[in-house]
């Protein structure tokens, strides 16, 4: 991928329609070898972008889901203690002495996503997705700095693993918490905007090939209107795709109020929102 347009084409081939901003962000991240921090409201396609990038580059996709209290043991590496103990008992039974060098070898090292990405030995670097980094805590952010800065992981007992080909790192965040400046400094940043209705329509068309054009047009337009309402959880692009898939599965070809009613659970995710969306519907025809 030599320029942003090629990124758009590549992602397009992987069924992801990127806009110019995202294409530029991905291009620069690839070219500069920097991690890419993607932010945007839920369901706007942050995770999907990383997946599509892996497909477009035809490389393995490694995912690390963040949560509070995530430690080196779950993100970087862990020693296989059970095997170590077993090894010790075996050595005892055989009357062989055991020292550190026997126990702390790569045989006993369990790779977790980040170390896996660093030690990946393929022709192309893998795509590592660190998903919802805002759900992790400050300690985990600090843990990431070495990896994000140098693409290396240090295991005290063994030494430092440096990646031969630095992995392509994508971080996503929903902004439920402000990330530390030190983390932001190490990343390129892109805020994914919610796409305009016609763009949303083409994305949905790509995601749900079975749906008819009028259905997609009406549905995205309706979603656009619903997003203007005062909702607890405004439907995102992911909801639009779910909803159109649901409608297509029901064999709906043109949007009618009754069909919206039947599938309202795909776009309204709280009881209050259900009421609000229902109020936005045209009144049902009297029979």
């Amino acid at each position: 991928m030599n320029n942003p347009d090629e990124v758009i084409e590549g992602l397009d081939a992987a069924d992801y329609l990127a806009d110019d901003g995202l294409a530029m962000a991905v291009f620069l991240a690839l070219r500069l070898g920097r991690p890419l921090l993607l932010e945007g409201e839920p369901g706007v396609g942050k995770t999907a972008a990383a997946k599509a990038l892996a497909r477009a580059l035809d490389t393995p996709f490694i995912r690390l889901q963040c949560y509070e209290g995530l430690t080196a043991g779950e993100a970087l590496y862990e020693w296989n203690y059970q095997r170590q103990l077993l090894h010790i008992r075996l050595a005892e039974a055989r009357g062989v002495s055991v020292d550190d060098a026997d126990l702390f070898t790569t045989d006993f090292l369990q790779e977790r996503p980040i170390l896996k990405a660093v030690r990946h030995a393929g022709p192309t670097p893998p795509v590592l997705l660190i998903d919802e980094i805002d759900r992790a805590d400050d300690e985990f952010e600090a843990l990431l700095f070495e990896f994000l800065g140098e693409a290396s992981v240090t295991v005290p007992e063994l030494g430092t693993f440096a990646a031969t080909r630095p992995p392509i790192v994508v971080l996503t965040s929903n902004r439920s918490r402000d990330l530390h400046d030190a983390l932001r400094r190490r990343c390129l940043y892109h805020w994914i905007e919610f796409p305009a209705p016609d763009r949303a329509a083409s994305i949905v068309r790509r995601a749900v090939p079975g749906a008819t054009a009028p259905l997609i047009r009406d549905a995205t337009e309706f979603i656009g209107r619903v997003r203007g309402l005062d909702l607890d959880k405004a439907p995102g692009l992911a909801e639009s795709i779910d909803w159109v898939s649901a409608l297509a599965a029901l064999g709906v070809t043109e949007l009618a109020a009754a069909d919206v009613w039947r599938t309202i659970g795909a776009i309204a995710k709280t009881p209050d929102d259900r009421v609000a969306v229902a109020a936005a519907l045209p009144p049902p025809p009297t029979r």
Partner: protein
Amino acid sequence: MRGTDRAAFAVAFTARLRRAGLQAGITETDDLVRALAVSPPTSRTALYWTARIALVRRHGDLAVFERVFATVFNDTPPLPLSRSAVPPRRRDDGLHVAVPGTGDEGAAAGGGLPWATLPPAVAADDPDLPGEGLDLPDLRPSDLAALADRPFEELDQAQTEALGTALRAALTSWPQRRSRRHRADPAGHRVALRPTIARARRTGWEAITVVRERPVPRPRRVVMLCDVSESMRSQAAACLQLMRAFTTVADAEVFAFATRLTRLTVPLRHTSAREAIEQASDAVDDRFGGTRIAANIAALLASHHGNTVRGGVVIIASDGWDSDPPEAMTAVMTRLRRRAYRILWLNPRAGAAGFAPRVGGMAAALPFCDDLLPAATFTDLTAATHHLRTLTR
């Protein structure tokens, strides 16, 4: 003492005496309450004697009693209290600016004329007035304590700042939650495998010392919304100080609102208190357009800061005068209630006698609030921050 809660007065006064070293307990307090009931104090002397007889049981305690009584009652106007007996409050509105006098003004107001006029706005040369040179603040903690009980509108900027600093220092405890991160602790329930194995290296790989760990408590996030509209004018400055205390001490998101929402977390984090407050005041430019509480809370929840409320303590400082209909308030508070851990409402009028939350917005919001606290003085604000401590489940 009409209209005074005798029990509250007696308890507070006894508590103060006890802090000063006088040995008085429940019995003495009870005696004072009964004594006040049977002999309602008509003058300061009467009150002095009633209290002294009821409370002091040892000669050695007399000195303490005298001292405390003097501190408490010296500044109060003579009894019986009536509106006319209270001296007019000093006005700090910038209208009466003292200009250096020429020295020939008459000593008496009115210049010896047989009628009374306003006191002269021209000050005589006063050696006590702060002149040039460095003017060092000479504030003792007791001065601050006295200031803290004054309503916000009577405080000038310097006093507000001093009290804000004190408030920040007092902000030590915080509602906490249990996090999913663990820390080594002998009293913990979970075995920390990694350090245990690391220790076992020294003992021939036999895990003799078991390292345990327990969850680390984390402070909850505080989200504070402060009403800066015209009706909250004098309170807003103090609330800014409270918000600054929150932003500098812990994880907090603070917003000001009148007709629209302004995020003040970043400006208020500034190292210099004065600059922080100035920047924050500059950031707010919708003071004079009325108040839309419900619309602003809705805007907060809809914005990408809406998730910051989850599991946090929400503090709303407002008098509850809302131009939005109460139904809007109910709707938005329902939503806020579902996301927040606790909701506190600070109302500057709540401390006043005879206060009832009858204002539409306030009445609508009240069923969703965990507490409605007064916020008319810095003492109230400090009490509110202490109240945060009790919020841990």
